[in-house]
């Protein structure tokens, strides 16, 4: 059943079994998994069924750290949550991601990948993906490509499957509407999680609507599934019993914020041949998978580096004739001798400002307009190498509360996104591995765009993955939740979503968010029973 919270009587106290805050990938998966349980479930969703700018405005936050990372753009606040515009790139985490890794501080999850495997299989269906097979060899064989000759200790061809992408709010709306035990409250903002005097049990959640009534939900179990930025914000705002925020005894809530820093055109490759025999190159066209190169074997990583993806972008693509690119284009045009790699490189070194730097800078800025009509030129046998990094846990990278308030009178969040030297080393390492392997296999030569001596490039992007802010650890001093996603010290409060991931890995998070939510649903059933 769906209820508009603005029609609930002000001051009402609604009793339920499980109260879930947030109707995105995590919240919808949880509610759906509980729909045949006979446990009454109330799902509180801040937005309605469609985008609404007044509600979205509640997401606005302050950027006090690195770069432009508008917090109201990197997520969506209506039923379905950010899956209303996610891209669907999916891959389960590696077994080694769950283990302790010497170069990643505070790494190691309190669960092993094996424990998640049955849930991954279900999540695969929920995200409307293909067979649960992420072995590059399987996909290469399917596409009739030769096996990869890459040195697996350096670079591994890696596939990501692409969801349609599943819009959770549309695809699973009917399931929740028809479930007897589930009530979805739309336009319902959880504003305060209220615990007993010792902060050992949550008793109720206060709900506010924009310009409408306020009421409370009382339940046996509570789950915050409001996204990786909002989950810590709600805890930090819930100060009735614990002044530093609920579950924040050790000042961990909001710390360790991670995303995947993304460098457009971190490298540039000139191929030896027009159609480089890269193992996965054509898969993106024909199959619902995209290729990338990554390190899978964490054990093979050099000290002080983390995971990465190198994405070969734009082979033989047409680039629109932006003025600066005309120079690039005409320079490339001289180089059309099909396999004279040295001439390419020689000329590029000679004309570097005109070609290499402009090429990737311009590519980065005009990425979405490559196919515009106008002066079109082809860059032969070259491609840009985008790099996505695993960010490592860093306590200084964090979400706090700002001095500004939103329309509900609540302090907005402040995001301080910060990196460490590990990300710098990993960036360099990722591109070096690409350069060595492309060179060794005679595929081409790579140019690496250096990072600025201090700081980070202006065009650095985030991947809109909000990770780590209520991290999982067996030790309450290093984590907000335990291995079952329960907040340490509080008997009935759970967190769902990527805020519980203790490490970010090199893969996109949503498939794992869904798998973890299914696992959490089983745990909640056990608790209620």
């Amino acid at each position, binding site marked *: 059943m769906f209820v508009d919270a603005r029609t609930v009587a002000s001051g009402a106290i609604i009793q339920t079994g499980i109260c879930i805050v947030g109707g995105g990938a995590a919240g919808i998966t949880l509610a759906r998994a509980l729909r045949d349980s006979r446990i009454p479930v109330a799902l509180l969703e801040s937005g309605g069924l469609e985008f609404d700018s007044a509600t979205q405005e509640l997401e606005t936050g302050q950027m006090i750290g690195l770069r432009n990372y508008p917090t109201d753009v990197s997520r969506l606040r209506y039923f379905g949550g950010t899956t209303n515009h996610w891209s669907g790139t999916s891959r389960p985490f590696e077994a080694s991601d769950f283990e302790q890794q010497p170069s990643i501080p505070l790494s190691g999850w309190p669960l092993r990948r094996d424990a998640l495997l049955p849930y991954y299989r279900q999540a695969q269906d929920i995200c409307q993906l293909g067979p649960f097979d992420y072995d590059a060899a399987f996909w290469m064989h399917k596409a009739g490509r030769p096996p990869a000759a890459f040195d697996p200790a350096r670079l591994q061809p890696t596939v990501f499957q692409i969801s349609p992408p599943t819009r959770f709010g549309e695809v699973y709306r009917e399931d929740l509407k028809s479930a007897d035990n589930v009530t979805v409250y739309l336009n319902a903002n959880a504003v305060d999680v209220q615990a007993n005097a010792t902060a050992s049990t949550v008793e109720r959640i206060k709900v506010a609507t924009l310009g409408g009534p306020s009421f409370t939900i009382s339940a046996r179990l509570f789950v915050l599934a409001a996204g990786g930025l909002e989950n810590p914000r709600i805890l930090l705002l819930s100060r009735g019993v614990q002044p530093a925020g609920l579950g924040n005894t050790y000042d961990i809530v909001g710390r360790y914020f991670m995303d995947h820093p993304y460098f457009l055109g971190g490298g540039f490759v000139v191929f030896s041949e027009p159609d480089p025999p890269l193992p996965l190159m054509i898969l993106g066209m024909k199959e619902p998978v995209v290729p990338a190169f990554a390190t899978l074997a964490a054990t093979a990583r050099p000290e002080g580096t983390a995971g990465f993806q190198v994405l070969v972008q734009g082979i033989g693509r047409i680039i629109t004739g932006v003025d600066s690119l005309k120079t690039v284009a005409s320079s490339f045009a001289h180089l059309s001798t099909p*396999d004279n*790699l040295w*001439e390419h*490189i020689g000329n590029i*070194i000679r004309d*570097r400002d005109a070609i290499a730097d402009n090429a990737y800078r311009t590519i980065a800025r005009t990425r979405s307009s490559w196919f515009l009509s106008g002066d079109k030129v082809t860059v032969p046998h070259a491609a840009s190498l985008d790099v996505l990094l695993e960010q490592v846990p860093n306590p200084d990278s964090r979400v706090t509360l700002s001095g500004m308030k939103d329309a509900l009178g609540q302090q907005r969040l402040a995001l301080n996104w910060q990196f460490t030297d590990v990300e710098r080393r990993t960036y360099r390492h990722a591109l070096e591995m690409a350069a060595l392997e492309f*060179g*060794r296999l005679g595929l081409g*030569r790579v140019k690496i765009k250096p990072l600025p001596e201090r700081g980070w490039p202006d065009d650095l992007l985030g991947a809109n993955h909000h990770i780590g802010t209520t991290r999982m650890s067996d030790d309450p001093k290093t984590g907000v939740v335990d291995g079952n996603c329960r907040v340490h010290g509080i008997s009935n409060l759970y967190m769902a979503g990527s805020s519980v991931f203790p490490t970010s890995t090199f893969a996109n998070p949503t498939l794992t968010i869904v798998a973890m939510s299914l696992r959490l649903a089983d745990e909640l059933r056990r608790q209620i029973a």
Partner: protein
Amino acid sequence: MTTGRRACLRVLAGLAIALPRIVAARPAVGFATLVPDSESAVVIGRAYLAAYGSSDLWRQVSAVLDAGPEQAMPQRFHNCVVRDFAQGDVVTLDGWVLSRVEAQICALVALAADGG
């Protein structure tokens, strides 16, 4: 390597230009179509010399190319390049990551072209 220095440089210059074809495993290279004093190799070579200088260069390149089994020079050269990348023995010139031996050969080409 016993050939005279100038003659050797010409051979190496030819190899440098031929490299991409060799690397791409296309042995049937029309050497006659190659320009021995390629402008491109000179540009790369100059970048190498600016970064690393020319001291001992000739001896280093000769030692590398002379080592290993008796093979035709293009094959030897190709093997050296592959080995450099496999062992991570590379130089970075203007951001480009090149095998040490290929960059050094370009440097010799540049020295020859510049009358060094």
